[in-house]
């Protein structure tokens, strides 16, 4: 009997322990990684979007709803990236804690200085983001400001583990600064390089390391490539001797290959998020893969 009582007691303690974890939902895998690094054992993290798919067009599967219903914190990329799929999930989750604007909703784009903010906005310009370019995760220098903001939020929601979150942030920051030093060194050789890209997905990275993005394969954001635009692009690339085409993993690669065939350029598939191509399971390997494919 005593053993039974003990196991029961242990069971209740364990279950309350697992219950005490902060339920966090992150919209994209890279955010999940940062939250896990700061939250450590105190956070139970669930990622909504698959890294294999276009981050703009995630299928709002109802199976994603229960996690949002349970969550105390939802970390979103923001800057309009989730506008096509997160609102209906939030609406169906019936959870006032993580409603947009409440304490448990964190728009991480507020921690970043956004670039490419359009001076004027019209749907005639395609699917543009009025707030600025939302793809800031491609620049590893944006990771620390995000980590700091996430730590602040975790502390605000779970003050009893303040010390843990602070320590985790400190450890993570030290590690990340070291990583950035080696990353920056590796990117030096790329300075001055000219590239074209499918969508303006890598602007933060390219700008940071002095790489010039000359043009895009899609004529306007969210508009599929047209033959007229593609032919113009080929002429421009020949004239300016551009030999690198940056391609995301999820769009069709036919157009990029066609252009490459006409210009002797190389198609470089760059990951846009953690886990989007093989060998990018961690934040470090994600950025290292970008570096290796772009600069080596």
């Amino acid at each position, binding site marked *: 009997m005593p053993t039974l009582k003990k196991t029961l007691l242990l069971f209740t303690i364990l279950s309350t322990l697992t219950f005490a974890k902060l339920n966090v939902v992150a919209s994209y895998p890279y955010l999940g990684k940062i939250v896990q690094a700061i939250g450590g054992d105190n956070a139970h993290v669930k990622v909504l979007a*698959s890294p*294999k*798919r*276009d981050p703009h*067009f995630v*299928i*709002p*599967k*109802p*199976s994603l*709803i*229960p*996690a949002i*219903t*349970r969550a105390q914190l939802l970390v979103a990329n923001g800057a309009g990236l989730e*506008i*096509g*799929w*997160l*609102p*209906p999930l939030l*609406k*169906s*989750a*019936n*959870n*006032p804690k993580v*409603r947009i604007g409440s304490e448990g909703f964190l728009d991480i784009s507020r921690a970043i200085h956004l670039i490419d903010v359009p001076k004027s906005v019209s*749907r005639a310009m*395609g*699917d543009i983001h009025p707030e600025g370019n939302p793809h800031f995760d491609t620049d590893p220098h944006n990771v620390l400001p995000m980590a700091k903001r996430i730590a602040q939020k975790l502390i605000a929601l779970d003050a009893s583990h303040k010390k843990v979150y602070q320590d985790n942030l400190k450890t993570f920051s030290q590690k990340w600064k070291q990583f950035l030093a080696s990353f920056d060194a590796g990117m030096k050789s790329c300075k001055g390089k000219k590239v074209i890209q499918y969508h303006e997905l890598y602007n933060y990275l390219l700008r940071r390391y002095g790489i010039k993005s000359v043009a895009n394969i899609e004529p306007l954001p*969210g*508009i*599929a490539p047209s033959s007229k635009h593609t032919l113009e692009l080929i002429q421009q690339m020949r004239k300016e001797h551009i030999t690198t085409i940056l391609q995301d993993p*999820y*769009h*069709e690669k036919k157009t990029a290959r066609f252009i490459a065939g006409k210009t002797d350029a190389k198609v470089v598939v760059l990951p846009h998020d953690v886990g989007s191509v093989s060998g990018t399971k961690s934040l470090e390997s994600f950025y290292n893969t970008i570096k290796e494919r772009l600069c080596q």
Partner: protein
Amino acid sequence: MTKKLIILSLCASTMLSAQSELEELKALLAQQMKMTQALQKRVVQLEKKQAIQSKITKRQDNKIRETKKQIAVVQTQKEEQPTVQAAATFDQKSFLPDIALILNGSTVARNVPNSTYASYYIPGFSTYNANTPMVIPFNKERGFNFNYAELALHSTVGPWFDADAIFHLRSNSFDIEEAYLTTRALPYALKAKLGQFRSNFGRINAKHQHSWHFSSQPLVFEAMLGSEGINDAGVQLQWVLPTEDTYVMAGFEALQGINDVSFGDTETNNLYIGYLKSSFDITDDTTALLGASILHGKNLYGFSTDIYGADFTVKTALDGYSSLLWQSELLYRNKKTTTDTQKQAGFYTQFIYQYDQNWAAGIRYDDLYKNLDTQPNNLDKYTAMLEYKPFEFTKFRLQYTYDKSKVFGINNERKNTSEILLGVTIEAGAHGAHAF
């Protein structure tokens, strides 16, 4: 003697000279005193002057400071001016609701003249009455149709409620499609809705025409619930169950029951609807959604009508932009009248292939497989469509329909209808993302 004399004279002279020196000194002293006095006077004068000057400079300093302040104020005003212009005093722009405008129209070719078409009924489910022409809300005319301009407003109206209103504007009518409040802060994963709204039972009833996969309503919904479906005044409560990865939602609605095709005894509110929905992932890319519903109300005969509904949806993502969707719904109706109990049933099943972001194609089969004993039960309909979206908010659809369910009352003839439709839908303004 001479020596003495010399000494004396010397002495005297020295004394004399001493005396004269003293006098000289005295004179000098007097002079100097005069000078110092003069100097003192000048000093006093100068001091006075300085005091005045310092007062002046102080005043000047003050003046400079003030002008600097004024400049600063002017500058800040200048800096603030754009925002002042953008948001004038008591400006309320930031509280404007999200506004969406949706336009829908079509061109139709059909093997039935317009006057005949307007008299159709579905045997066993509806009848023809020459005095009260039937409402056909969409794509009624051969030739061109402007179906509606839909105006949708959404706004948060306080910490507790969101408000939504959807209006349909047509050339000769203004219809309130929906207008309701939704709670924002209920605990325990609950949400309540009150107002006039489309019931959330099943799959297609809650959706607006422009978000359907086909331009026409499924036959079983038209037969049992009319062209409007269940769109009624009342209250709704929904609860998301605390499950792990399987989505389970229970809903309950109490409505007035104005739908007179199946209900309509509105001496008091008469319609109650309950439903259960569940969804789970079969694989990472394949999701299933199942639903069961019961509608219980009172019909125009004063007796009860029960409708049992079941729905089943499977969606597989082939890649980020391509998917397969299979969706089916079945309704079974038990309608008591003064003379008998009518048992009728029908279903639709549709298959949609989303090829990429621009192109999609689909087929649908509709069947009313159970009818009254005296009525035909071979009422069915075939529909196929091809959809092209040059941009997310612009949709063209080519649709072919072969309909074997209609009888035309004007000459009381059952005739199969063929229809080719080219429809267009434009969405402007705030974009409401589509749910699963």
